[in-house]
């Protein structure tokens, strides 16, 4: 029975690799170096290249999506990391005992909200606020770029950060909570303040779990699709120039381009998307394994990547 998940994993990977082969042959290494993603003219006669058929003038390169994924995820971590540390310290030091449990549960509940709802909130609330209330002020702090929409890196990064804060906080807070009572009391008994207990015991002894929890949040942010798709602006073939640029991520592109990919009779568009998915899986896998290796399995229950 223990082999069942392994078999499923194997089948999944074989399928992904098999389906990605035409794209690999057609694009070669330029898949990783080009930022042009053009489905080609699917109504013209297909061309033949390296033994595979592809739509006329089609071109597939993941660079713009890779950069988008990297920047939105990085931005999300940049916000989520300090917020999660702050929340964890608040829960463990400054929350009365009887409120600790409800408070942690509340934070964890946010991890269960469907991402499409976060996306909806992003579109209806966050984007207009960014466009009308935040961005007009940016020119006073030296921002030069053009502003066309509330969607983009800023919106996607913010939404992602809100989505991963519960996971990162849960892991960090739990590891702080499990610090031995004797160590905390040891600091108090020497005349330490709450903040000094937080600094030396709660933060000082949980560095590993803090890094691990952040990596798990990163894994979640990398794979997150729906909310990002809704607020990123879904732009293609353009590299971002500022924090307010429209963007797109690997996962969002797969979802966005899937429908039109089926129009392509050669199957090359679909194959390219599968290859994109394969790269995404590999990156997420590495990040998640690293996070797991650091934190250990126990802290993760209920926060599997979706």
């Amino acid at each position: 029975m223990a082999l069942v998940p392994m078999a499923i994993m194997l089948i999944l990977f074989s399928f992904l690799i098999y389906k990605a082969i035409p794209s690999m042959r057609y694009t070669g290494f330029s898949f990783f170096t080009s930022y042009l993603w053009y489905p080609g003219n699917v109504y013209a006669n297909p061309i033949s290249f390296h033994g595979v058929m592809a739509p006329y003038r089609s071109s597939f390169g993941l660079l713009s999506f890779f950069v988008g994924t990297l920047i939105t995820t990085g931005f999300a971590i940049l916000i989520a990391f300090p917020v999660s540390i702050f929340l964890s310290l608040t829960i463990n030091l400054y929350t009365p005992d009887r409120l600790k449990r409800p408070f942690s549960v509340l934070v964890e509940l946010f991890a269960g909200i469907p991402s499409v709802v976060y996306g909806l909130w992003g579109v209806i609330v966050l984007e207009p606020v960014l466009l009308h209330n935040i961005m007009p002020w940016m020119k006073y702090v030296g921002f030069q770029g053009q502003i066309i929409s509330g969607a983009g890196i800023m919106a996607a990064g913010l939404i992602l950060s809100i989505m991963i804060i519960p996971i990162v906080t849960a892991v960090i807070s739990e590891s702080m909570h499990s610090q031995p009572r004797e160590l905390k009391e040891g600091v108090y008994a020497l005349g330490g303040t709450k903040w000094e207990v937080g600094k030396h015991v709660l933060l000082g002894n949980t560095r590993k779990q803090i890094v691990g929890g952040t990596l798990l949040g990163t894994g979640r942010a990398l794979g997150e699709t729906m909310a990002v798709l809704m607020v990123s602006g879904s732009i293609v073939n353009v590299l971002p120039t500022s924090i307010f640029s429209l963007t797109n991520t690997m996962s969002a592109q797969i979802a966005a381009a899937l429908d039109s990919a089926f129009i392509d009779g050669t199957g090359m568009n679909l194959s390219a998307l599968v290859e994109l998915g394969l790269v995404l899986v590999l990156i997420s896998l590495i990040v998640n394994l690293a996070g797991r290796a650091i934190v250990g399995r126990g802290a993760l229950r209920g926060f599997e990547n979706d």
Partner: protein
Amino acid sequence: MIRMPGIIEVRDLNVATDRQQILSNVHLTIKENAVNTIVGPSGSGKSTLIRTFNRLTELYPKLRQNGQVLFHGKDVRDYRVISLRRRIGLVFQKPNPFPASIYDNVAFGPKLHMKLTRTKLDEIVHDSLVSAGLYDEVKHLLDKSALELSGGQQQRLCIARALAVQPEVLMMDEPTSSLDPIAKGKIEDLMMELRNQYTVVLVTHDMGQANRVSDSIDLLYNGRIVDYDKAEVMKMPEFEQAKHFVMKLAK
């Protein structure tokens, strides 16, 4: 016998949770520059009692306390808690070194309270380790992790750590209960040396130890201080078990 006022005076102290009375009408005097021992069976409230001295009981919001604990004649609640805990040190039952180097463990307290030059800090660490009788064993290992030391060494390190902030009173909560006999002997010798410079409060359920090191012994039983001189008290059925303790004390 008229009791001279001590460095710590406990007056009519009651501590209770919602469900249970932990200390009842405790009166106690801690004498300066002596080893003051509080003995009693497990669960008699010894640890809670000494934790009221440095207000560590405040970490447990469920504990309700009334009555007074006076330190130098002033209620401990009128001190700033940080300076109170610096002046009344506590060594725990289980050695609890921080997961850091031996040096950093001892330097931890001084760094919390004062800005010190490296030379001054080195001096404090050296002196504290010497006072705790650990210096010769660890002088070449100061950068090693404290967790690599043996249990007895860890406990003496915790004593050094407590001494490093120059307290007036050093409280030890069953400091040898998790140690082997040799390590225990070393710490008992240490206590008797420390009383020249510090006031020592020892909590133990080890009668032999109490007899070896103490200048005065108080018996805490079911949250009450029992006057073990009085024969009639001994006849009360609720002190049946306490009698067993007192017999050993008397010898």
